[in-house]
């Protein structure tokens, strides 16, 4: 085993993970709030309204970062699942499974904001646009992973099965994206693009997007650590370190 794996494995010890996660969580959460607030201020107040779509286009400061996250988290989940399958890291299993609902949440946000954005733009809440359709399929992929994990009684077995499914989904994701785009051009009638007529984004619109992208990443980090930590405590409730972590002298208020 090379040093990288040894390092990963030491991080993967449940007790150490719990300690490190507990230290990082509040910082990540604070960063998420600060970046998010700044991004909202810049996006909703400072940035100019879109010259084509007006004020309604401001929803993109939520929609686009959420769409990025929906893909990013799927990739993260599959990567953690890969570590779980190959090296049998317990923490990686729990991390992959903790990431799934967060990713599904971001995907749902993307779909909801997309459909709200669609109302003033297209005059209807839902159009079978290539992006939205791909996103919808992505949501179903998340549901499959979450459903499989919950259906299998043995938690570790379930996590590994769902990890394998996430990996299969990751391989399939570009194919789905490509096929949906192809489908959209085949049926010409629906090819309306949210970004039609816009060739470049002005700098004042770029900053809030970047800040929000960071905010969502930090939020994901904090949320992931908290969820994984909770799952670890539940899984190892009988172990001594979990008892001290929950009821011991260090955290008596828990």
């Amino acid at each position, binding site marked *: 085993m090379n040093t990288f794996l040894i390092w990963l494995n030491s991080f993967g010890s449940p007790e150490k993970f719990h300690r490190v996660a507990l230290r990082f969580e509040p910082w990540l959460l604070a960063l998420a709030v600060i970046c998010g607030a700044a991004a909202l201020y810049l996006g909703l107040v400072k940035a100019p309204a879109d010259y084509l779509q007006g004020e309604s286009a401001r929803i993109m400061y939520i929609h686009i970062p959420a769409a990025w996250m929906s893909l990013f988290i799927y990739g993260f989940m599959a990567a953690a699942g890969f570590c779980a399958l190959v090296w049998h890291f317990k923490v990686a299993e729990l991390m992959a499974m903790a990431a799934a609902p967060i990713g599904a949440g971001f995907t749902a946000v993307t779909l909801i904001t997309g459909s709200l954005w669609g109302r003033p733009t297209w005059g209807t809440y839902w159009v079978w646009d290539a992006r939205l359709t791909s996103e919808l*399929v992505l949501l*179903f*992929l998340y*549901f*499959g992973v979450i*459903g*499989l994990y919950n*259906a*299998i009684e043995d938690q570790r*077995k379930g996590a*590994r*099965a769902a990890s*394998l*499914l996430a990996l*299969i*989904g990751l391989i*399939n994701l570009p*194919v*789905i994206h*490509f*096929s*949906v785009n*192809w*489908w959209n051009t*085949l*049926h010409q009638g629906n090819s309306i693009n949210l970004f039609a007529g816009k060739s470049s984004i002005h700098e004042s619109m770029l900053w809030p997007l970047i800040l929000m992208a960071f905010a969502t990443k930090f939020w994901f980090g904090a949320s992931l650590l908290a969820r994984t930590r909770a799952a670890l405590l539940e899984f190892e409730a009988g172990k001594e370190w979990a008892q001290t972590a929950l009821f011991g002298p260090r955290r008596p208020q828990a």
Partner: protein
Amino acid sequence: MRKGSVLSAFFGVIRRDALSLWRRRADALNPIWFAAIVITLFPLALGPEAAKLARIAGGVIWVIVLLASLLSLDALFRADLEEGSLDVMLTSAQPLAVLAGAKILLHWIATGLPLLAITPLAATALGLSPRALPVLLTSLALGTPIISVIGACAAALTAGLRRAGMLLSLIVLPLVVPVLIFGAGAVEASLTGASTTQPLLLLAAGLAAAVSLGPLVCAAALRLGNH
């Protein structure tokens, strides 16, 4: 003592599953009846107007074939798991991917092939333009094995769950979206006069990838259930 050759193991699994399928041939026909009934439902729901039916026939047949293939997936590994013959396969030290490949091949022969056989009948009943029929058949011939492969991987992941049916659909359907798009898209393209080569070639590429990778993934999924 020599162990049985890989080839004999492959055909052993096929022969055993084919035999038990033949003894339960009434059950094996269920996907076909299902497809026939659902095809009847469409004119009943939408009205018998020939032009409308002809317009949607390709897509309808594709969706029905997809759902009918799903029906029989649930039982793909159930018998092996319950009766313990999965243990037999695993302790035989034969490559599990080869045995899984045999099961996938038989699944396609038992469901994909009969569905393909009734497709001309269904296409005629729905009034699909005759010039689109060869494209529909080609797309189904290329696409149904992919459905069998992906479905078998999902069935291996859900093997041992008591009510796996709905979950299986939830897992399989998003994964086969591209197959449906290119399959039904090829038929659509042939109706509008566009080129059908691209979607059919993409399906063929998908088939090559599925056949080469699928059994390995399926074997990995089966092993997960045991480890």
